[in-house]
């Protein structure tokens, strides 16, 4: 879902660049509390994981594909503040090294995927946390739903930016309908990948799952036994 340069006008790019900078500053401040000797390496690996999986485009329709955004993966595994930084680092590496996503569009890409995506996923995961704490199936279901909603809501970010400063080429109604339609399909793929990833980490190391932390869930008790 990486925007190229020029899809919206310069003032809009600048506006979202400022929003991204403010958002990331807050995230850096808040992330400290969630990072220690154990979670810092985990967050680094989760970031590399998101980069790798974003390379894997899966087909959704003839001639169209989708790839993981990763908002729910990071929100559930490392929390929203660190998670937003994870996705932002991926986006910066992609824009600078791989010409994937424009440089002037970086602010919008960060707002859509790192801020809107991650915090939407985290809000859904918090709402479903009682279910996630019940058992592994509940956690996996939470991961699926959070991932699905994250993709659809993040896609609306582009619709808003196009509405504010779109340089034309298609009507807003068409953009809205196509974005939401395609990302509903992509959201299902995102949900499956996220559910599998979170399920695998929870099976091996439930103590490394941010959403389960501070709980006396059966998942954690089971995980701490030898």
């Amino acid at each position: 879902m990486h925007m190229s340069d020029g899809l919206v006008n310069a003032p809009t790019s600048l506006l979202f660049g400022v929003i991204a900078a403010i958002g990331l500053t807050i995230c850096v401040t808040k992330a400290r509390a969630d990072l220690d000797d154990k979670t810092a390496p985990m967050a680094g690996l989760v970031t590399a994981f998101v980069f790798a999986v974003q390379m894997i485009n899966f087909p959704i329709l003839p001639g169209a594909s989708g790839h993981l955004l990763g908002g729910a993966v990071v929100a559930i595994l490392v929390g929203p503040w660190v998670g937003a930084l994870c996705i932002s680092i991926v986006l910066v590496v992609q824009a600078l090294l791989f010409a994937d996503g424009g440089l002037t569009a970086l602010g919008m890409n960060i707002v859509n995927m790192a801020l809107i995506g991650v915090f939407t996923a985290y809000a859904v995961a918090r709402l479903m946390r009682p279910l996630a704490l019940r058992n592994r199936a509940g956690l996996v279901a939470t991961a699926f739903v959070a991932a699905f909603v994250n993709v659809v809501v993040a896609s609306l970010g582009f619709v808003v930016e196009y509405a504010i400063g779109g340089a034309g080429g298609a009507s807003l109604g068409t953009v809205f309908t196509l974005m939401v339609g395609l990302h509903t399909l992509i959201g299902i793929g995102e949900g499956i990948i996220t559910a599998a990833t979170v399920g695998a980490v929870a099976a091996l190391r439930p103590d490394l799952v941010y959403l389960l932390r501070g709980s006396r869930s059966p998942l954690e008790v089971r995980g701490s036994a030898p």
Partner: protein
Amino acid sequence: MSAPSRRSAAFFVGFLVVVLVIAGGISYFASADPDGLDTVTLSGCQLDEAGEPVAGTCIAQIAGEHAMASPLADYAVEGGEGTVGLAGVIGVLATLVVAGGLFWLLRRRDGAKARE
């Protein structure tokens, strides 16, 4: 400062291997079709072999070229065919260094007190 336990180290090494396999191997099987957003911005245009718009009206026509040349552009090393896996591995290592470094610097140093 407590070093991560041996159990954590084993998990992290395993995780890194999985990530490298995805970027270095599974990436060869990725779909080359445009993603959701690109499908929307290309909608209304006829595309040539390379997927660039040649006729019609669509959002992507006004998209600019990427402002920075990179030897890894479009997930290939120097544009070479069949180099997506190598580009992916380089990207994973770059991401890991940047993210791991930043998060390690940001982490709390109060060790045991930090645990719940």
